[in-house]
């Protein structure tokens, strides 16, 4: 009950600009075994949502084993010491809940969604799949085959083809440039022993961040944690050293032929880490450039004024150990040159001319004013809390975010545009009918 009141209190403060508060969005504690717990009690609906992140993403993979982290996460709910794959899915699906795993570069995530009455079953299954996965040879072969088929299927999605080629060119050998699911060849190189060792090393409580939001109080949560995670041991593992990220030297253009009607264009380069202090100024700058939907320059120019594309966007993807900037669109093959030219023009413009007062104020008003929408459900809160912990944003982040965004000036926008946008040393990927596109680039 009290958690909910604190949460609403924080929201109210958000809407009253001049007040500041150190009130936390959630209760945080570190269990004796090192696991970090973030908890918000919300009693409006009889459900519980758990987002459990484990620092065992692809950045922790040994060289030559691309896809190991994702495959390990994928196999968690394919059988444990005491339950078969089907036992697990049948148990959670019978109560109308869900228990899913997903790979990632920085961390993997296990999400649990259950009605309150089934929360004990949910924690039992959650703990079993994370602590005691069986990794049977049969299930490993099965999942490898499925992942390989889906890698093949991705080749019929031009946007995915473009994105993979782009990340590879931008990040090179760095794990961020390698697909989390690996490649057909790298999956062949992964043995059961690799998976067992990876799990043993990285699936430890010191690497775990668990966010719980919903109709569960502190006492109930503690009882479940004691019972299902109390015996789990292991300290946080130091991150593996990663290759140094290097900028390109002049434009690099990758053209991929497909017999399709549109050119799928991605143009971009290295960006910033989520923990970079310039994150907030970059957020404002990118909103104006191509992140703000219909309020953005790229959309206004390329879609609204020229009718060249349906989806035009730009974003900074920010991870723990680096990130990238991308501007992307799809346009009929014959318009590719024109559309690419407009992207470069807008990148150049925001680097050389200050944005208008209206653009700056609108961007800030949206970024701060939309914050309540980012945390208005149990699912969103659980996901948000994991990010707050992992990227060390602080439990007062809801307040701090507003302060950081409000402080951004036109000079900041110009400065970060100059620093983090590069209309010369970029990677350009075009997937489409190259004959019809006859690219100038």
């Amino acid at each position, binding site marked *: 009950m009290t958690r909910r009141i604190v949460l*609403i209190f924080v*929201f*109210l403060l958000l*809407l009253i600009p001049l007040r500041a508060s150190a009130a936390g969005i959630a209760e945080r504690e570190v269990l004796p075994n090192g696991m970090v717990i973030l908890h918000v009690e*919300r009693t*409006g*609906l*009889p*459900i519980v*949502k758990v987002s459990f992140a484990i620092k065992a993403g692809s950045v922790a993979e040994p060289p030559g084993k691309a896809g190991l982290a994702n495959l390990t996460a994928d196999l968690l709910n394919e059988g444990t010491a005491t339950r078969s794959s*089907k036992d697990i*899915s*049948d148990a959670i*699906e*019978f109560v109308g809940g869900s228990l899913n795993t997903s790979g990632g570069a920085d961390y993997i995530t296990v999400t649990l*969604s259950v*009605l309150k009455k089934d929360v004990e079953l949910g924690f039992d299954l959650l703990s079993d799949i994370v602590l005691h996965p069986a990794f049977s040879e049969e299930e490993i072969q099965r999942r490898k*085959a*499925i992942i*390989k*088929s889906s890698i*093949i*299927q991705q*080749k*019929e*999605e031009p946007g995915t*083809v473009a994105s993979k080629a782009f990340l590879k060119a931008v990040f090179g050998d760095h794990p961020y440039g390698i697909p989390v699911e690996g490649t057909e060849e790298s999956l062949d190189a992964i043995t059961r022993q690799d998976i067992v060792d990876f799990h043993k090393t990285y699936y430890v409580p010191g690497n775990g961040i668990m966010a719980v939001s919903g109709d569960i109080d502190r006492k109930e949560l503690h009882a479940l944690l004691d019972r299902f995670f109390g015996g789990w041991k292991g300290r946080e593992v130091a991150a593996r050293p990663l290759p140094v990220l290097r900028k390109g030297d002049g434009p*690099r*253009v*990758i*053209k*991929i*032929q*497909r017999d399709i*009607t*549109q050119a799928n264009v991605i143009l971009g380069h290295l960006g910033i880490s989520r923990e970079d202090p310039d994150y907030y100024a970059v957020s404002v700058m990118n909103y104006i450039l191509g992140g703000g*939907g*219909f*309020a953005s320059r790229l959309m*206004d120019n390329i*879609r*609204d004024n020229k*009718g*060249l594309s*349906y*989806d035009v966007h730009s974003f900074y993807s920010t991870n723990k150990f680096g990130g990238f900037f991308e501007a992307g669109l*799809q*346009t009929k093959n014959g318009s590719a040159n024109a559309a690419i030219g407009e992207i470069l023009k807008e990148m150049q413009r925001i680097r050389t001319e200050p944005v208008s007062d209206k653009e700056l104020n*609108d961007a800030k*008003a949206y970024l*701060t*004013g*939309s*914050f*309540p*929408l980012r*945390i*208005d*459900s149990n*699912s969103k809160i659980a996901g948000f809390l994991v990010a707050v912990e992992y990227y060390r944003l602080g439990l007062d982040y809801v307040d701090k975010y507003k302060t950081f965004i409000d402080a951004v000036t036109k000079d900041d926008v110009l400065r970060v545009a100059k620093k983090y946008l590069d209309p010369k040393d970029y990677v350009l990927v075009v997937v489409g009918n190259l004959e019809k596109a006859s690219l100038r680039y």
Partner: protein
Amino acid sequence: MKKAAIIFSLLFVLLCPHGAGALNLKEYTLDNGLKVLIAEDHKAPTATFQIWYRVGSVDEKIGKTGLSHLLEHMMFKGTAAHGPKSFSQAIQRAGGMDNAFTSREYTGYFELLASDRIGLPIELEADRMRNLILTPKAVLSERDVVMEERRMRYEDDPQNMLHEEVVATAFKDHPYRWPVIGWMSDLKGLDPDDLIAHYKTYYAPNNAVIIVVGDVDSAQVLAKIKESFGKIPRGPEIKEAHIREDAQYGEKRVYVKKEAELPYILLVYKVPDIKDQDGYALDVLAGVLSGGKSSRLYNSLVYEKQIALSAWASYEGLYRDPFLFYAAATASRGKKIEDVEKALLDELENIKKDPPSEREVQKAKNQIEGSFIMEQDSIYMQARTIGSFEMIGGWRLVDKYLEGIRKVTPGDVQRVAAKYLVADRKTTGILIPEGEGKSDGE
């Protein structure tokens, strides 16, 4: 994405937990015929405002398909009172998000924002209901955008293209047969005057429903709605077309040959909509076949036989007229689509021969009820569900629907499978991959 969300299918992601009348919804109708539905939900200080018009691709004609969806795009172009391009900017400036969706039977617009700012979308939506500026030049420019959208979603997506072909083959005379986005040839030949007439006919208070869900006071919101919308005059009555698809005689088959990697099969069967008694058992049947990894299609085709990358089924019952039951699978690498088709049909035959177990049926029912409750985590989804039922026959169908689901027995599931999953109701579509992309490197 913005102005994007064409609804292909409505998942049964519904709301309201146990028991009858759990839906805490207030209904009002203004003098001009505008219906207003308000559900207070105080879990977070946010709200959604949605306005749904009873117009979609079923209201279009051969040769002029895609008008409803293009009009949805045009609704963001501006009015005399609020200049060009200002709609989304005003909402975003208030910290809100806005978007819209078009289906075969309705077109919806929504905003999500801090609940104390709910007055803004009310004012803006009232303005654009009648006062949109539609110039031929702007219409044709946005038509180009929709053609790009069509290229992205259909022309260059082989599975989606197959879906389009299968539905166009399954229906002979019902307007369900053409896609919501419209055929490319119709978009090319579009006459802006048709679009303007479409707007004038269908965008009127007596053809719309407002849905508000969130941290609001019903009386206050209703007063604001009356203030902004109450003065808009009622439009001429719109006749609801009742179209019946003629009987089908024998299975239909269609092939799409496109650059693709894996073969894909889609079976569709003509089935009644959710207002029919058999609708509940059809929905449970879809759950038994396709409700997660423990369900029959995944277990058989993906897990045991390992011939499919994915396999699923879905009952599409949230329509005014009878629509379709889908069953589909993507072949794994190196597997023959003929074998996948046989495995898929075998699973359907199994259920026709022997009823599913009590546990399987109970599981499917629990999943439907569970998703009703889970959906209430999101104010947006609550409003979407209310709207989806309202458009096909009234939001009170939600309660009736849940009661109906609870009564379904294994015998019912077997009976509807035997009755509807038959060749004379079936259209089979197969995607045959052709060609292969080549990388030119740098």
